[in-house]
């Protein structure tokens, strides 16, 4: 593996991979801006062979694998190579797509020692009008800049690090500055938090959590109502949820979210050194 120094390296590697009509497969959906932030932070390493590019992003004690391959066969062969130095580390990979499209890639990863860790489904709320009046719950407010560490710690403690992209402190700082983090305080503590992002007509609900001690007390509902009001100009709101979290799915359906057909199969391989 070698450290990626600039976006141009990735572009040139993709050019070498995706040539001629092929059965191109990829899970590299990061925008140029996101890739640039990873490169700038020194988090990205690459590994390339004929017909296949692997990118490894450093996370908390493991790596996330992104790939672009000329064919699933090339990918499978590359993943199974026992001489790959990344096999000593714990690695996850997100296989995103429609279930039938993703299944063969799941097989390729399984053949290389990966196991399915969890499945996420995407849900979307499309074109529905919110409640007519602005919610006035006084307990819901935007997080303040001086609360960035509390909010970051709140999410870090509740998120599953393998299946959910834990935000960095910098990301939380930027979201707070952009007024995209809503919180509820109860009895002097952070009871719940919601983080979202809006691009044009689409809002993405990135994180929505309620502390265990404050669950079933209307905290989550208050946050969601405020989000729906704040994103009332959005034509679409999307989110990802674990497929076996039936309580959460039921709650999202109550707010008008429906499965939109996409899944994320999170594959995990414990390092050989583990």
């Amino acid at each position, binding site marked *: 593996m070698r450290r990626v120094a600039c976006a141009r390296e990735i*572009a*040139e*590697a*993709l*050019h070498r*991979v*995706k*040539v*001629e*009509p*092929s059965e*191109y497969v*990829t899970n590299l*959906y*990061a*925008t*140029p801006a996101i890739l640039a932030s990873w490169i700038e932070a020194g988090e990205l390493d690459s590994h390339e062979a004929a017909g296949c590019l692997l990118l490894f992003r450093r996370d908390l004690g493991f790596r996330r694998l992104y790939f*672009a391959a000329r064919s699933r066969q090339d990918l499978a062969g590359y993943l199974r190579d026992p001489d790959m130095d990344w096999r000593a580390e714990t690695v996850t990979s997100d296989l*995103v797509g429609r279930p039938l499209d993703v299944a063969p890639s799941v097989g390729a990863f399984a053949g290389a020692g990966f196991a399915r860790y969890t499945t996420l489904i995407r849900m979307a709320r*499309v*074109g529905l009008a919110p409640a007519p009046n602005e919610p006035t719950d006084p307990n819901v407010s935007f997080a303040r800049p001086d609360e960035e560490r509390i909010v970051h710690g709140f999410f870090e403690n509740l998120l599953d690090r393998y299946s959910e992209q834990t935000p960095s402190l910098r990301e939380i700082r930027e979201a707070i500055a952009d007024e995209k983090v809503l919180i509820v305080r109860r009895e002097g503590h952070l009871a719940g938090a919601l983080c979202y992002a*809006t*691009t*044009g*007509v*689409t*809002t993405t609900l990135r994180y929505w959590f309620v502390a265990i001690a404050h669950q079933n007390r209307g905290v989550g509902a208050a946050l969601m109502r405020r989000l729906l009001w704040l994103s009332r100009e*959005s*034509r*679409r709101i999307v989110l990802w949820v674990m497929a076996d979290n039936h309580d959460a799915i039921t709650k999202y359906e109550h707010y008008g979210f429906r499965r939109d057909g*996409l899944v994320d199969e999170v594959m995990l391989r414990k390092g050989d050194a583990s």
Partner: protein
Amino acid sequence: MKTPAEILHTIRPEFDFSSSHDFIGDGMLDSFDVVTLVAEMDREYSISIDGEDILPENFRSVASIEALLRRYGVPR
């Protein structure tokens, strides 16, 4: 043969792409949609769009998509 506009409607039927000059900036297409769009156009037009061309600026509008397709020999 489907037009780019028709393929876009297949991927994201909830949006009116004729109302936007910047599909990416307006949040109508995310990065997953772009990859899906590339796969659909590869199949529809029997081409292989280079990985280096899978950039937001090539998919911001019908005009930019059509310009990209012309570079791959797809007629109007």
